[in-house]
């Protein structure tokens, strides 16, 4: 247990490059260590006077601001992990930004209730007695299914954006 914790802390530093101390972890993290971070896009002017954007970790946010949620999965075992699936709920008080979910090598589906997942075309809601396609701002859950196995030492990546209401 103790050993696992310490190891996990190291991974967190490496994965996020935040220099953050270890996270409290109650159980053995297993083969995949999952890390979530909330960031905000900042426009900065570089030495050449050019405007560039960078992501800054955010523990606070203003209403109307777009928060970028990034989930990384690191395989810390010596064997591949198969059927890797990441789930992330759109946080409370936030609205999913259409077409913002991305993840290399993943199939992305959405859900309104956390139970039924489907592509944008498959999700419908009942409105005025008729079924219509769900709007992106109605998605409450996002799922990334990785097509390939996650090799030892490899890192998988999933991201979406949501606006603080």
């Amino acid at each position, binding site marked *: 247990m103790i050993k696992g914790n310490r190891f996990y802390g190291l991974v967190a530093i490496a994965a996020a490059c935040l220099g953050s101390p270890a996270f409290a972890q109650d159980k053995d993290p297993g083969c995949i260590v999952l890390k979530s971070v909330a960031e905000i896009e*900042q426009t900065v002017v570089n030495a050449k006077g050019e405007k560039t954007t960078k992501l800054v970790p955010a*523990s606070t946010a203003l209403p109307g601001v777009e928060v970028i949620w990034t989930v990384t999965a690191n395989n810390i075992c010596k064997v591949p992990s198969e059927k890797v699936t990441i789930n992330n709920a759109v946080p409370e008080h936030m609205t999913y930004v259409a077409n913002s979910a991305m993840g290399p090598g993943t199939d992305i589906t959405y859900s309104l209730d956390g139970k039924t997942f489907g592509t944008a075309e498959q999700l419908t809601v009942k409105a005025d007695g008729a079924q219509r396609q769900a709007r992106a701002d109605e998605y409450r859950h996002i799922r990334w299914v990785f097509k390939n196995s996650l090799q030892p030492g490899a890192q998988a990546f999933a991201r979406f954006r949501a606006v603080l209401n």
Partner: protein
Amino acid sequence: MQSSKFLGAASALVMALGFVPNNVHAAGAPAGTVINSTADVSYTVGTVATTANSNLVTVTVIEVIDVNVTAQTANVTVNPGDTTQVSTYWVDNIGNSAETFLLTLNNAVTSDQFDPIAATPAIYLDSGGGAATAGIYDSSDIVYVPGSNDPALAADARAVVFVVNDIPGNALDGQLGISRLSATSRTGTDVPGTPFPNGGNGINGVVDAVIGVSTGTDSGDTTYLIAGVSVTAAKTQAVVDTWGGSRPVPGARINYSIAVNTTGTGTATNVVFTDNIPPNTTYVPGSLALDAVAVTDAVDLPDDGDYVAASGPTPARIRVPLGSLNTAAGTKTVTFSVVIN
């Protein structure tokens, strides 16, 4: 806990960069709300299926200080010397936390032609109370005293404010006078995005406050338009004697024509034209007409005109209600005839 300390430092960086959201919502998520997010993963190693959770990520909603002031009747027509002109304003806290606002009145706006005269006192807070008086200026409303009863508004709450002005007697027809009510955050004002670390009015010391798009202050204008109006009557007469001439002898008929004209930008309401029947003459029954259309002599409705017989010291007269008159209405012509006794 340690991780949140780190993220706190990161947020200071965010604020230092002066981030300004371009679409701050009215209110939105309440300031201080802690938004939690945890991702989970499922996978198999060999034949063993496993799940794991990510760390918990929290994002705390910052306080946005924003206010909106709107005059409920932006344009009001008045006459010079009018008193106790009451303007209603809405002061809306469109931030996401409680905030207190200072109210100020500025009648010396330079982009107008006259300055409305603020009554003493000039600003009142709607007492609300029962639905019957809510939003209506009445004696139960409360005199506003800056610093004493500044409106303290919860997120999305509204204060109804009344401003009382008089109109200077020397204002001229067509002139504009602006009366401007401003509401200013007691926390402060600045360019949008300016942070007040651990500031704000609703949750002091808990979360940062940031000035929103309104810059922490807003104002609303009531524009008074002097809409003076003057109604004049020009009377002409033509004498027709019984021989076809124009000698004013007994039995001769005098045809009177009165042109009623309106000048100015305003509207005169409830205009009534009356004219006494001259001494030693007798009204010719049925001769009364308005714009060449005969009106009956009887005091009746909806007929526009009456002949009123003499009563005691009051001489006989004709009376023609003309209603509302403005320049667009053009000239109204009243005609009647008398016979010389």
